[in-house]
Every structure is written in C-alpha cells, then in structure tokens.
C-alpha cells in the first residue's frame, strides 16, 4: 500500500493545494503486523465524541474501512414522558433535548402546540421568539466552533466562544432566571417579558459580537492547517445529502438551498432581511464557513428584531385568552373567574382539539420537527421530536469511508450533534 504524503499549503485563491513530499511505503502488507483490519471502539466515554456516542471503527492501518455509530446511551424517554404531561409541562422537557440551544426548542414546541390549538400569538411575542431563536443559534454555533477547534487541536477559540456564550447566558438569565434550562415559552405566549436593561444588553452584544467572529475568521479561514484538515474531508454530494434527509448547515454546505425560515416561514421570518449561506463542496470546510456566516446573519436578524421590539413597546405579550394564559397572580387570588381559570389550567391543563400537526423550525442543528397528536385531552397522545442531529449522524458511516482516523474525529465534529436530541 502506498501512501501519498503531502503537506497542505494555500494557493492564491485560498484553496488548499498539496505540495508532495514523496511517496511513503508503510510496510509490506504481507508481514504479520498491520495485515488484518483492526476494530477500535471510540466511546461512549471519550473526549471527542461530543457526548455519549460510541463509534466502532474498522481500521486498515490509519485508514477507515467502516465506521459504525452506536447511540442510545442518553435515551431518557422524553417522548414517553410527554404523554403524561400537559402541553405547558412539556416545555421544560424541551430544554433538555437540544441543551445547546434551549430557547429554540421551547419556541418550536410552543409553535406546534399553538398550531394544534389554532392560536395566533401577538406581534410582540413573535419578535421576542425570533430574538430567542437567533440567540440560540448563536450559542449553539459557538459551542460547535469551540469544540471543533479543540478536536482539531486549536484550543483558544473554545475560550473565546465560551466567553461570548456567557454574555448570552447573562441575558438569558435576566430574562428567564436560568442560564441553560430556560423554559421560555408558554402555549399562547411567553413566561415573562424581557426585563429592563435586556435590550441595551443585547444591543451591546450585537455591536461587539462580529469583532469576535472576525478574530475567529482570521484564526481559521485561511489557516493552512485548518484548511488542510477540513477541505475535501468528509464531503457529501448534493444528491446524497437530500437522500439521507440531512438538514441545516450539513445540507446547505452540500449546495442545497433549503432553510425552513425561507421555505416555510414562521414567526414572520419572511419579513426579516437576512441571507442563508450555501456551500459548494459539502466538506468540513464548507460546513465551517456556513456556520460562521450564519452567526453573522443571526446577528443581523437580532438587530432588526430589536428595532421592531422598540416600536412594540407596551404591546401585549400573551394571547388575551384566559383559558390559555394564566391570569395575573394578584387577580387569581381575588377574582372568582380568574381563580377558576387558574385552577383549570394548572390542575387540568389546556385541552387541545383532536387532531395532529407537524411543525418544522430551523434549529441551529437542522430542521427540528414537532409532531403532536391529540385526542381532545390536555395531554398529547404522541409527541414526536424529529431530531435533526439523529438524522444527520446517520450518514456518518458514509462520510467516514476511506478517511483517516483523525478525520473521523473531524467529521464527527462537523456533523454538530447533541446527544440529548439524538437519544431523547
């Protein structure tokens, strides 16, 4: 077996070229050592598997013949648990599936429940939900950036990205009281309005965040080592990407222009001015470029949403329906009807009409779908999460064929998985 050894360098256009160093002969394949393929088990406890993922890799020397992912090590029974909870009681469960972008999951579930019940939320609520979704997109992509950098050997951007995440966490904490498990939405509205100082804080973040992204861009985008390790590695063709049901940046990096926010818009996304980056080669580098650009675009959407929020000062937040939204606590203690509404909502839950919905949103990882089936009671018959990471991860065995072992780590990082969502 001959190995073509080359060193990566950049040409004038910024694409990687390989300057050959010569041909290496790693040994006679007929000798005893190195003749048989080796079965290596990565995980489930492993620093680079991004959670409890187990990869069984069949290796011929350094080259992968087959890579088989095993999941289920974080299966918690979310969907079963949801069948025993009211719709508002399921919102805290949604925080814990994709725990890197909890507010986006809260919004996704609330939208599905509202579609099932036929509720239209207020303008202010929609703008706040867009803010929540885009903040979640930024924090999820920042985790991806930091951990992928670590996997490929670049430690410092991990600290930068977590520092930026702390600024978003401060805002999340001032709004919901929790850094991570936000439980932000309720069916028909939100848990609370944004506090004083939130808008100023978010504006300050939006004005300084692009500078951090520019630093990351300087660090990585034209870096020969980064390009050498990510370009033409783990490439997925356009047709395969569609056939494997990929979504999100994985799909867009392969050249498919599908973004739920543009194609089946929700929360008035069609009225916001933003671009969707689409890649070309479908390799790790393109996925990196797509996610980096998505962070810039999320910043852009956040600024527009803040402008709208300023115009909607004093507008109602929740739907004005006492059967769906809890009355203010002061009234619940003094007014009979308010007390009855409070009692019925808390003790019995809000019933949804019999029927079913499927609602897709563009989560940072891909298309997060919520499929809810109701039989007319306050608890769903079936709560199905269509998990983008689960479906994106299924193509890992295809992506890793013929790659080197260290590429397996890089490809796994580029899929951007979160095991809570995969295993539910």
């Amino acid at each position, binding site marked *: 077996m001959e190995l073509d050894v080359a060193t990566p360098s950049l040409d004038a256009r910024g694409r990687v070229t390989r300057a050959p160093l010569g041909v290496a002969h790693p040994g006679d394949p007929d000798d005893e050592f190195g003749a048989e393929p080796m079965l290596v088990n990565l995980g489930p406890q492993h620093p680079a598997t991004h959670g409890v993922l187990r990869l069984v890799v069949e290796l011929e020397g350094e080259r992968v013949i087959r890579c088989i992912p095993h999941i289920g090590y974080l299966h*918690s*029974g979310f969907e079963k648990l949801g069948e025993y909870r009211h719709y508002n009681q399921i919102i805290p469960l949604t*925080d814990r599936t994709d725990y890197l972008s909890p507010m986006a999951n809260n919004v996704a579930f609330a939208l599905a429940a509202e579609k099932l019940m036929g509720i239209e939320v207020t303008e202010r609520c929609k703008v706040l939900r867009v803010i929540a979704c885009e903040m979640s997109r930024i924090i999820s992509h920042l985790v991806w950036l930091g951990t992928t950098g670590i996997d490929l050997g670049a430690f410092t951007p991990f600290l930068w990205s977590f520092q930026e995440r702390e600024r978003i966490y401060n805002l999340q904490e001032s709004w919901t009281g929790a850094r991570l498990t936000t439980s932000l939405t309720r069916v028909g509205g939100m848990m609370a309005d944004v506090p004083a100082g939130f808008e100023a804080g978010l504006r300050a973040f939006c004005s300084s965040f692009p500078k951090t992204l520019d630093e990351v861009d300087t660090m990585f985008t034209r870096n020969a080592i980064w390009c050498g390790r990510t370009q033409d590695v783990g490439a997925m063709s356009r047709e395969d990407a569609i056939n494997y049901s990929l979504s999100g940046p994985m799909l867009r990096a392969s050249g498919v222009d599908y973004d739920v926010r543009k194609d089946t818009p929700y929360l008035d996304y069609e009225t916001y001015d933003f671009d969707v980056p689409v890649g070309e080669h479908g390799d790790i580098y393109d996925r990196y470029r797509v996610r980096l650009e998505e962070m810039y675009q999320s910043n852009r959407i956040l600024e527009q949403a803040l402008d709208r929020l300023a115009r909607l000062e004093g507008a109602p937040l929740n739907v004005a329906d006492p059967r769906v939204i809890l009355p203010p606590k002061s009234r619940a203690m003094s007014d009979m009807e308010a007390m009855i509404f409070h009692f019925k909502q808390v003790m019995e839950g809000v019933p949804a009409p019999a029927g079913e919905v499927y609602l897709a949103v563009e989560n940072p990882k891909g298309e997060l779908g919520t499929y809810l089936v109701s039989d007319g009671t306050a608890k769903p018959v079936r709560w199905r999460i269509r998990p983008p990471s689960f479906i994106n991860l299924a193509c890992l065995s295809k992506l890793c064929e013929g790659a080197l072992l260290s590429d397996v780590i890089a490809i796994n990082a580029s899929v951007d998985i979160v095991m809570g969502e995969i295993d539910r």
Partner: protein
Amino acid sequence: MGLIETPNAGAESAELAGVSPNFITTKLDFLANWARSNSLWPMPFGTACCAIEFMATAASRFDISRFGMERMSFSPRQADVLICAGRLPFKLAPIIRRVWDQMPQPKWAISMGACASTGGIFDTYTMVQGIDTIIPVDVYVPGCPPRPEGLMYGIMLLQKKIKGETLSDRTLRQEHLVDDRGFFLPPEKIDEISEPFGNSVHQTRSA
C-alpha cells in the same frame, strides 16, 4: 459514602489499625490531604446538559483551574475525581461502573445535577435513579443544571471532605465492587430510594 455500610469506618479504625494519631501522622495526613485536594484531576463523565455547565465552569469566566482542576483527565487511569455531569440511562450504567473501577485509589465521585443524584425529572424506564446505585458518591450537587458556582461549591465541599481524611483509615480507600449477584447496593435499598415521592408521579389531575 452515605449509602454504603462500611463497618469500622471512622476514627476507631485508626486505633484498630494499631496506629494512634500523633504529631507525625497528623502532619503527614495534612500534607497528603493538602496535595490531594488541591490537584484533583477530574474525570469528566459528561452526558447531558450538566456537561455544558461543567464546560462553562472550566472556561475562563468561572475557571476551574484555580482549584487545580483544569487538566481534564479523560483517561480514568490518571483521574482523581469522577464528575458525573448529566443523566445516566441504564445503557450507560455498565460503562460508568467500568470507568469507576478503572480509576485507581484515591478516588472520589461528584454527582453533578439532579439527574445524576436521583434521576431528576426522568422517572422513566431508561433512567438510573441516581448514580449512587451504581458507584459510591462523595458529593451530590443539586440543580438542573447547577450553576458553575454551585459546582464549585460542591468541589470545595469535596476538598473539605478530603482534608478531613486520614491515611491510616484503610476503609476510606476500600474498593466497593459489584457483588456476585450483580448488585452494588442491595436491591431493597435500590427500590426504596427509587420510590417516587411527593407528587412526582401525579403531576396532572386530568385523564
């Protein structure tokens, strides 16, 4: 090790071992405990959301490096404290057991979060109702997820616990293995601590 019955644990064992505490042993203990508690290399057994808060604790704002814990030891052979950050399903139970068995003494375990401590909100068919049914736990950190300050408080409690140890107490460094019947805790104990309590089961009154 609250749930494990260790006979002869505590101060009596020092006498039973034939060494009564004196100036030399207490100074040696102080030195050993000081060294151990200030350089605990964590084995981050991070599974779910708590792992993200653990990563935030390790990052620059909360900086676990001030406790000497910045060197994450993903190999159990070189680790001192296993921090189980996140929920533990039954499928993962033999793995955490094996990782714990692979850690050499002295070793401690921190159960971070409600799910690792008691099963949390997941009283379901898949979830271990507390990792103390699988491995012996020293410090429980409640929260869902605990704030980084909460985890650091738990670490400081562990440091305090370590500082109260003594080298002559052999029972502290005793391995608690899975017994022949395949149990770490007796089955009655597991059922007793896994009982639903309060209104964890009757969350709703509707049909």
